[in-house]
């Protein structure tokens, strides 16, 4: 991919969100930018089917 094409692609994706650490997620109507969660949180599929950051103490990891 040419450098200007790459830059343009990045600019287009930035339309969805440009907070460093964000993740692109398909929402009910369109793609959304999921901003970074608090430090130490883990990414979990929420009740609505969309990923969300949660406190790991609420996740039933094996001990």
């Amino acid at each position: 991919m040419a450098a200007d094409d790459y830059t343009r692609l990045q600019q287009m994706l930035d339309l969805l969100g440009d907070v460093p650490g964000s993740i692109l997620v398909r929402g009910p109507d369109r793609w959304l930018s999921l901003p970074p969660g608090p430090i130490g949180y883990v990414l979990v599929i929420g009740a609505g089917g969309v990923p969300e950051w949660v406190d790991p103490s609420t996740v039933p990891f094996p001990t």
Partner: protein
Amino acid sequence: MLDRVRVIARAIKQIPAAERGPMQEALRRYMRQNAGVRGTAAVRERDWLMSLLTGRQWAIYDEQGRQFWPMASLMDVSDWLDHTGPRLGSMLMRGQDEWLPSHNCHPKSVLMYTAPGTHTMTCPAASLPDRANAIGGY
């Protein structure tokens, strides 16, 4: 906004019938994409008119060569990403040869590490061999 769309629709009726179909379809698509979208409607209308008039061949570049008009709208980008075939909640993952939507399991599943060459997915936390296999902590 709707009044201006009606003006465009009337203008299209003046165009020879053979050329009218694709323009009418483009207008219908434009209105569908704008349904319920706030804030970008004016930009999308401008881009649609430019694409109708110029086929997006015309653009403005700044001194660094960056194209800034006409530029893609938020919904254009979302529509392009939909070509990867996502489901609700999918995240974009880089596969072997292309970007792919993640395979999500059920609510409360966590994003987990999968071996290189496999499709990253979410799974129930209790099925993980240990906590270190979960990824996504920030």
